[in-house]
């Protein structure tokens, strides 16, 4: 088992090293094949580990990484059903996307760099999935942040793209700070940073400490998973190549935050405050992003906001105490959302990177293959009854109701509202792209490489059906996934809600999802239903705000980024270079008697240096003196 897990990690790492060292020297086909094989091999190994390690939970250590005194960090693995499933999903989606990328990148000359980054990404993501020690996990955690940075800005000649990458790295790192602090606190509290140890001893934490840990974990998850208030980087991240958006910004990296909360759920669940915060943040984000998605015109941005919104749902599931539901949601979402992104990649390729959905329309005629798989993804995303997505949402709604109190009732209402919005924005997108004909000329549409369309089918199948893995007994299923995950610490296998409530919930949810489709059809379908000019105007005004993500990004730019830059220049010029100088000369002006002494050596630069030196010394000496005074 150890060698399987080690090889699973080493395959993509070796692939990346190969690309970096030899990628430019070998033929293009070889480089592409090596990249796909590295990840495909990893997938095979993940599958082997999944089967051989069925239901088992164990830890194993590859080597001792950092060891000083009591601070001991090993490169180690905590293997349990959760991590086995995550690794399987990550390698599966990665393999599909690597193959797809061969087609997508076939005109780009910089493919070596692309595949190198992509391989490093898979390596880092697998570390997140498997690592036991939080410091080791942090390697993957920051590694995916780095890969996301370089891949968003992959076409670096275009400054806005590079800037989008930089923004993503910065904002996710604000979350990572909390992760670092959590590591430090865990070490101070438990003298260990291994997840298995922490979870086993979590019960020793008192409520206050648990809340602090819970909130720190939430904050770190918010950065990676683009939850409010750290959402603004994800829509910009769409500047990267589309397969990257599908892999990193839909299926894997952005779910790392959710996954972290599941991994450390025993700590999180100790604090009801932290749990409520997780659910609250998730709910507000889900609504916010769903509304923003309604206003977007760019196909990838609709999907980006949709991802944020869906991640919000996963947070809600965790906050409601149901990690199995959250994991089921995560899996299905990984399939259907990466599918939708890959479809978007096909569409963009065909339309010469023209992404405005209102300039598309009627694409069904030009790309029937893409149409059908896109429909499959859209149905699941909108949680239309009988799709996999529907069962996930059903479980989620029941899990929320399982929590007593007004707060969770409110969350429940929010989740219902968001499910209406989800289906509305999804089918707004669908109808705008495929239904209403705009009259594209046939010659404007480029043919799509077969490799890009053929790789979509497995994702479409899984996107539609993954939810059935967890079909509850009330509907004739056997909750296979829940059974598999049941032994993960903190998991609740069966929600066990009142049957009446259950059918009621299913009814509400399906009604709202279908209503969303209906409204979308009326607004954006092939035929005009509405001619209420006023309504359209009002909607347009609202969507202006939604298009800008309700100005959150602008707020950060004006309130934080610009002042930081401005002040840094002021600080440099006035504090570091002129203040000490000015201080000397200024005091010379105000104190005449002092000035006569100073004037002797306050002319010229040398004297300035002496002044700086003197003042610096004086400041240091004063500081020291105060420090001594306090100590003795």
């Amino acid at each position: 088992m150890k060698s399987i897990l080690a090889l699973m990690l080493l395959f993509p790492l070796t692939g990346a090293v190969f690309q970096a060292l030899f990628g430019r020297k070998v033929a293009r086909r070889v480089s592409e094949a090596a990249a796909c094989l590295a990840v495909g091999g990893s997938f095979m190994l993940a599958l082997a580990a999944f089967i051989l390690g069925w239901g088992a939970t164990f830890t194993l250590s590859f080597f001792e990484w950092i060891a000083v005194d009591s601070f001991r960090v090993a490169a180690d693995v905590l293997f349990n059903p959760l991590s086995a499933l995550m690794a399987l999903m990550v390698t599966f989606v990665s393999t599909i996307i690597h193959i797809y990328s061969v087609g997508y990148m076939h005109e780009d000359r910089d493919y070596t760099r692309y595949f190198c980054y992509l391989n490093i990404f898979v390596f880092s993501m697998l570390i997140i999935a498997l690592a036991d020690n939080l410091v080791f996990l942090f390697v993957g955690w920051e590694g995916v942040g780095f890969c996301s940075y370089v891949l968003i800005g992959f076409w670096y000649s275009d400054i806005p793209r590079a800037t989008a990458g930089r923004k993503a790295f910065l904002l996710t790192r604000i979350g990572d700070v909390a992760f670092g602090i959590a590591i430090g606190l865990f070490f101070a509290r438990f003298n260990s940073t291994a997840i298995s140890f922490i979870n086993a001893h979590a019960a020793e934490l008192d409520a206050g400490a648990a809340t602090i840990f819970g909130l720190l974990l939430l904050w770190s998850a918010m950065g990676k998973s683009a939850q409010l208030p750290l959402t603004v980087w994800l829509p910009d991240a769409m500047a990267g190549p589309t397969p990257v958006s599908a892999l990193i910004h839909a299926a894997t990296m952005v779910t790392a935050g959710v996954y972290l909360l599941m991994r450390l759920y025993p700590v999180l669940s100790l604090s009801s405050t932290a749990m409520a915060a997780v659910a609250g943040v998730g709910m507000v984000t889900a609504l916010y992003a769903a509304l923003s998605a309604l206003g977007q015109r760019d196909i990838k941005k609709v999907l980006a906001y949709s991802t944020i919104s869906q991640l919000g749902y996963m947070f809600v599931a965790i906050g409601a105490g149901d990690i199995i539901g959250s994991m089921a949601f995560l899996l299905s979402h990984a399939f259907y959302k990466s599918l939708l992104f890959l479809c978007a990649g096909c569409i963009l390729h065909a339309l010469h990177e023209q992404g405005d959905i209102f300039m598309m329309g009627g694409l069904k005629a030009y790309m029937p293959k893409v149409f059908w798989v896109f429909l499959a993804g859209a149905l699941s995303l909108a949680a239309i009854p009988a799709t996999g997505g529907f069962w996930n949402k059903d479980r989620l709604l029941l899990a929320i109701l399982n929590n007593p109190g007004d707060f969770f009732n409110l969350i429940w209402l929010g989740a219902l509202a968001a499910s209406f919005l989800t289906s509305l924005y999804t089918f707004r997108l669908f109808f705008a792209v495929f239904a209403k004909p705009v009259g594209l000329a046939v010659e404007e549409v480029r043919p799509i490489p077969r490799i890009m369309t053929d790789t979509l089918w497995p994702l479409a199948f899984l996107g539609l059906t993954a939810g059935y893995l967890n079909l509850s007994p009330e509907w004739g299923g056997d909750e296979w996934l829940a059974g598999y995950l049941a032994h993960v610490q903190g998991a609740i296998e069966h929600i066990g809600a009142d049957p009446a409530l259950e059918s009621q919930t299913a009814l509400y949810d399906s009604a709202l999802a279908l209503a969303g489709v209906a409204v979308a059809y009326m607004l954006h379908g092939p035929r005009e239903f509405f001619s209420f000019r006023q309504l359209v105007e009002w909607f347009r005004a609202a969507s202006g705000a939604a298009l800008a993500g309700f100005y959150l990004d602008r707020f950060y730019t004006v309130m934080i980024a610009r002042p930081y830059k401005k002040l840094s220049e002021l600080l440099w010029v006035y504090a570091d270079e002129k203040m000490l100088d000015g201080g000397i000369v200024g005091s010379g002006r105000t104190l005449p008697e002092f000035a006569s002494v100073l004037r002797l050596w306050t002319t010229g630069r040398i004297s300035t240096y002496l002044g700086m030196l003197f003042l610096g010394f004086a400041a240091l000496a004063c500081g020291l003196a105060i420090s001594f005074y306090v100590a003795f």
Partner: protein
Amino acid sequence: MLTVIIFLPFAGAIAALALWREPKMCRRMSLCVALADLLLVTSLFFAALRPCPAGSWLLLEDHSWIESLNVRYSLGLDGISLLLVLLTALLGVLSILVSWKQIDEKVGLFHFFLLSMQAGVMGVFLATDLFLFYLFWELQIIPMFFIIGIWGHAERIFATVKFVMFSIAGSLLMLVALVSLYILHGQATGHYTFSLFMLTGFPMSKTAELLIFSAFLLAFAIKIPVFPVHTWLPDAHTEAPTAGSVILAGLLLKTGAYAVLRFAFPLFPNAAFASVPFLIAVGLIGLFYASWIAFAQRDMKRLVAYSSIAHMGLIVIGLAVWNRITVSGAVLQMINHGITTSALFILVGMLDERTRTRDLSEMGGIWTRMPIFSAFFLLFAMSSIGLPGLNNFIGEILILAGAFATHPGAAVIAFGGMVVTLVYILRLVQETLYGVPRREFAEMCDLSGREAAILVPLALAVLAIGFYPGPVLDLLQGPIHSIVGVGVGRMAALP
């Protein structure tokens, strides 16, 4: 052995002076000498990796020197100094290589200064007699003065004068402190000595201890440099030739931090203990203040120079918290910073040789022109922000996680440094590497073999320490255990 390590470069320096008419010969000879020294130290390093007997000192040398004052020529090598000497030898070789093309005037003199500076720095890391330490301390300042002053850029004279003024002020303070310590100890025990071992644990009156400690600390603080006496550093770096910057950032700054660890804290544990909050405060201020200012810089070298101040701030915090974990982190971070920052200075120097500018607003699109150079640039930039898996992360996490037990507040704030560092480094990367390739740089060629030979060892070191720091950390445990152990023991006995 230790004497050979120190005086081999010095002999090379004299030989370089003798060969001043033959620049080519002189370069080759200096390189050979530096390589031989590196080989010596490397073999020592591998010898030390094997499980060695207890006791932190690996090698000691002791001879009487100035009988009348009881000054002794005594050197000692433990894991800490071994790593720093190894770094010195490596950067010594690299700084000769980076100057291969950049320096073409007064070549003999340049190598004389370069090698004698290397000897001085090694002496600082090895001396265990305070008087000898002081001599080596001075020996490293003078060559740097000339290197900046003669081979520097436009504003070199002012920069070098500023550098020397700050350094001399520190040295004077140290000299006064040194002599007073010598006299106090002599008066109290009747035994006049400069030996670090004899002076350690010598009980002094509170006032004396505080005053002498302050003088030492201020002298070392200038070298580190600690906010607010850091203002010499950006100027010195900006004006120095690449080799000067490499030595300055990679080695001279380390001598300050090393001296705090080796001398200031063990000699004056009570005063040191009292100064901890103050040191943590200046470390934190330095970290954020310098990072903030680095963000505004337009000159690439200045930006890296300010980043040095910020990184040194974290090292000061690691030393001040003074437990085994943080001190190990701080020492490792000295090495890491020496590797990474030197590499960044070297890269900026290579770019400067090609573009004749270091202004960020005139850069852009370098990746298209020089992909290999850019890959190295990105690697070292990521090392600088402490990306896990690369060298800096190990030091940072040790300092930060180790500080949590006793100074959680400071550690939480210092974690914020992760973001401010990223802000300026990403700006540096973006404005240099990304963007539309400029037409002026169309003829630019990628790294030459010599340049690659400079960067590859540094890159390997970055990866090796990042992936497998075990051997290096093990080497530090013995000495840090004995130094920190003594300190903590005595601090605990405080009234």
